[in-house]
């Protein structure tokens, strides 16, 4: 009875397998069950909750259940997108973990028949003073760059936060966006008894065996060196060939369906294809091209070797498929066929070595109800990093230099952001990335966001804020959101606190998406992000894709000397969960309520203003509050400002410090001519003039407090990240 436990199955789950299967599973079958019944593949602790999310909308072409979601952008074209985690592999081997994370999400989009056109990354690490963190950051950024750059797919945006709870369990979430002709997109369901199953791409080896169950579905210890063999090795060259090959196979209409191989390898891909098509499937492991000749059938079935695709092909078209694979110099083989038996049979040279009912394997895993328990207290550590008695100027400089806020140019400079000739706004250049889509005579904008610290303060409100922030980021470039993808990174859901975080967060996500009429078209759940020191911050990462009619009016310009500066929107700043509260070591439970409807009105006002060219400089107020945002705008423009926040104090009945450094959703800072800002008035959204852009100092007054710093000082602080990460390296010539 102990073998199933080693593979991660509980005694009750094993009993259920015996009952369904009707006999003891052999080694091949047990390996397959253990993987597909793992948290990573079966979503057994999250599936019931995810059912609450809205998934339908007029623009949705593909929703949850396919390899990625997709929305229609007109002229016969669709945008496919998905975000996925590769957290534990990256914590073990940051370069390959991150690289294969990118490779995996690209394949999800490729499998839909789309050509990937952008990558974004959402990363979380411990604090930068840790040598381990610096090692992980360096490896992860190199790994992401290696894969994306080598594939010729631009990395156009993302975010990096540094917080203590991620010290031993970093998060690497990668999002891919692709473009496809709507009528040429392909589904994953196996169809047509007698159709052939073709495996192509890399050869199958022993790498990554058991990755899904061992790495992704259990808590993480401090000493995980022994798990290194379960980390896969990426080969972007192979994937580049697979991508071009898939594009040509689909253009030639040679495929019935297509699926990538990811976690749990052939078992998952073939099983899910058969389940979705309600068919059976036979796979002969003797036909699989192998890297090592003596692999056991179970190893072949669970190998997580990268850069492989599985296709269902009509018998008459097999020759054409194999010929295109030969052209692209990638291995291919017919390894099985679609049957009408409802059975997933594993054969070796014709002899049956495993036989499982498809639905028992893919859909038979029990789904669990969570047992949430709200913790009475703040459960995460608090560290003081700010000098006691620091005045507003010192606080501002300190916040600008705090790793989560400071410029991430060090990372962006290692990513090709221009290949593909679509990038209108590069990473870090605007609130959201903007890509030109001449095919449908418009552009798309992409944002990714998720502030784990604020979600830790209030899982429901923090998640609502994250989605509002994404929508606000899109509005700042004139884009209207079309769909949402998400990656839910949480700790061990079997523990009441994490169960509470997860269920509250999904409630919040559903609430905000329904209020904004936003369909959730796909996503990924990563649980057990937990170490002996405790769970990570609950971190729902929201990815959002929007459209804008004209990429020539998408704002993102620096403010000009003499511009008026205004605050727009229902902004009620509070220090709860803020960067300043973090720096003072005063974090605690709770956030002020987030009002979705007024925030939506402000988002729409900004979007329309950007689209019609009224607004050319705008950003939403986020980490570090108004003083920080004004400083960032000033150092970008190289022009200071003279601003008073007294109207904010009056309007929001808040303290001076709240006005300067408080955070919350709904606020935008705009700059432009007085006339252009006046044009935005009278539309039901509050607008307060705060001052002017001018000079070489950043002057922000709030009651008796004031920030008074040089633009150059602010810039030095904001751009201080590179030499703090590269402490052991000379770095590149600047």
């Amino acid at each position, binding site marked *: 009875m102990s073998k199933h436990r080693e593979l991660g199955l509980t005694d009750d789950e094993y009993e259920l397998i015996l009952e369904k299967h009707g006999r003891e599973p052999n080694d091949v079958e047990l390996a397959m069950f253990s993987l597909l019944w793992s948290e990573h593949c079966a979503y057994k602790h999250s599936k019931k909750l995810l059912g609450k999310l809205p998934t339908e909308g007029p623009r949705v072409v593909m929703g949850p259940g396919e390899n990625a979601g997709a929305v229609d952008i007109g002229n016969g074209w669709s945008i496919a997108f998905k975000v996925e985690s590769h957290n534990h592999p990256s914590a073990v081997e940051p370069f390959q973990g991150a690289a294969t994370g990118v490779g995996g999400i690209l394949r999800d989009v490729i499998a839909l028949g789309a050509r990937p056109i952008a990558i974004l990354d959402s990363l979380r690490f411990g604090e930068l003073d840790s040598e381990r963190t610096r090692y992980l950051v360096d490896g992860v950024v190199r790994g992401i760059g290696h894969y994306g750059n080598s594939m010729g797919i631009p990395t156009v945006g993302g975010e990096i936060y540094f917080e203590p709870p991620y010290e031993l369990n970093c998060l690497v979430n990668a999002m891919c966006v692709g473009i496809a002709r709507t009528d040429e997109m392909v589904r994953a369901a196996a169809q047509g008894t007698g159709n052939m199953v073709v495996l192509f791409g890399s050869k199958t080896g022993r790498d990554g065996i058991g990755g899904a169950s061992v790495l992704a579905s259990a808590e993480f210890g401090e000493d995980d060196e022994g798990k290194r063999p379960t980390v896969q090795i990426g080969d972007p060259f192979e994937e580049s060939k697979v991508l071009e090959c898939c594009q040509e196979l689909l253009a030639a209409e040679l495929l019935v369906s297509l699926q990538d191989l990811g976690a749990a390898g052939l078992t998952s891909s073939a099983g899910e294809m058969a389940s979705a098509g309600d068919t059976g499937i036979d796979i002969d492991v003797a036909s699989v091209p192998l890297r090592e000749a003596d692999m056991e059938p179970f190893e072949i079935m669970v190998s997580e070797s990268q850069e492989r695709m599985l296709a269902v092909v009509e018998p008459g078209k097999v020759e054409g498929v194999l010929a295109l694979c030969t052209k692209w110099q990638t291995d291919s083989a017919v390894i099985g066929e679609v049957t009408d038996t409802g059975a997933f049979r594993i054969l070796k040279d014709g002899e049956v070595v495993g036989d499982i009912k498809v639905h028992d394997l893919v859909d038979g895993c029990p789904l669990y109800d969570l047992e949430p328990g709200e913790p009475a207290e703040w459960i995460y550590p608090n560290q003081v990093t700010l000098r006691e008695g620091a005045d507003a100027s010192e606080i501002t400089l300190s916040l600008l230099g705090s790793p989560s806020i400071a410029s991430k140019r060090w990372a962006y400079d290692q990513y090709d952001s221009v290949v593909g000739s679509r990038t209108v706004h590069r990473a870090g250049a605007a609130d959201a990335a903007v890509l030109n889509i001449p095919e449908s005579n418009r552009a798309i904008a992409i944002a990714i966001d998720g502030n784990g610290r604020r979600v830790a303060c209030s899982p429901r409100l923090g998640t609502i804020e994250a989605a509002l922030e994404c929508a606000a980021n899109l509005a700042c470039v004139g884009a209207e959101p079309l769909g949402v993808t998400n990656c839910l990174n949480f700790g061990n859901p079997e523990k009441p606190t994490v169960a509470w975080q997860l269920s509250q967060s999904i409630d919040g996500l559903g609430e905000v998406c329904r209020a904004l009429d936003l369909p959730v078209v796909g996503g990924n759940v990563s649980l057990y992000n937990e170490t002996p020191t405790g769970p990570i911050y609950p971190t729902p990462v929201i990815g959002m894709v929007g459209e804008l009619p004209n990429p020539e009016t998408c704002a993102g310009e620096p403010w000009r000397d003499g511009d008026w500066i205004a605050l727009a929107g229902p902004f009620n700043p509070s220090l709860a969960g803020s960067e300043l509260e973090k720096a003072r070591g005063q974090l605690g439970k709770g956030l002020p309520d987030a009002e979705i409807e007024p925030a939506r009105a402000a988002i729409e006002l900004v979007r329309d203003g950007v689209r019609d060219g009224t607004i050319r400089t705008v950003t939403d107020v986020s980490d570090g509050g108004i003083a920080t945002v004004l400083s960032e705008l000033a150092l970008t423009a190289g022009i200071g400002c003279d601003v008073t926040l007294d109207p904010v104090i009056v309007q929001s009945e808040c303290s001076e410090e709240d006005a300067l450094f408080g955070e919350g959703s709904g606020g935008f800072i705009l700059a432009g001519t007085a006339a252009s800002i006046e044009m935005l008035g009278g539309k039901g959204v509050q607008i307060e003039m705060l001052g002017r852009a001018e000079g070489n100092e950043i002057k922000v007054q709030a009651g008796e407090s004031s920030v008074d710093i040089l633009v150059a000082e602010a810039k030095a602080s904001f751009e201080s990240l590179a030499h703090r990460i590269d402490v052991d*390296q000379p770095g590149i010539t600047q």
Partner: protein
Amino acid sequence: MIWGVLQFPGSCDERDAQNACERAGAETRLIWQDETDLSGIDGIIVPGGFSYGDYLRVGAIAQFAPAMGAVAEFAAKGGPVLGICNGFQVLCESGLLPGALLTNEGTRFISRQGDLVVAEAESPFLSEMSPGEVISIPFKHQTGRYFAPPEMLERIEANNQVAFRYAEGQNPNGSLNDIAGVVNEAGNVMGLMPHPEHAVDPLTDSTDGLKLFRGPARVEA
């Protein structure tokens, strides 16, 4: 004018190169690595990317592709050949251009918009530019440090074979003499590390790169 844009397994800027040629008013045709018939082609672009995964050594495997044999003949007859990034590396490995590209001094991939200064070389690709002119185009590569042994470097400089140098203070990779691009002795073959094909659309930044792609048509006319 019809440009042939080479495509190897692992190429990734070939569609961008086609887009640039078309914006410069020319037509293009993709040339798969095993094609050897270049009839009807007026100019060749060896695009950026990671041909053959950059395995063994960057550009080392692509030189043996059948299409490269045809390109060498095309170049020997005076046809214009432009190698960008990986294409530059391939042309150096093929012996069509002098020197070699080594790993960046900082070992990292670098990606940023930067300035190039046009040098003294004579080439159809430079016919729309004058020495000393500055153009803004993206730099993006990990293996872009230009190197040549001292005698070769001296000869390249003496023959005015340097096409572009990184602007002062902007050498991103440790290239000798700030060299960003060179031409062969005849001037019809040019290679450069930065990416003119990504600087052809006002929407995505500078359009300075167009000048390179218009140059040969202008000479032809």
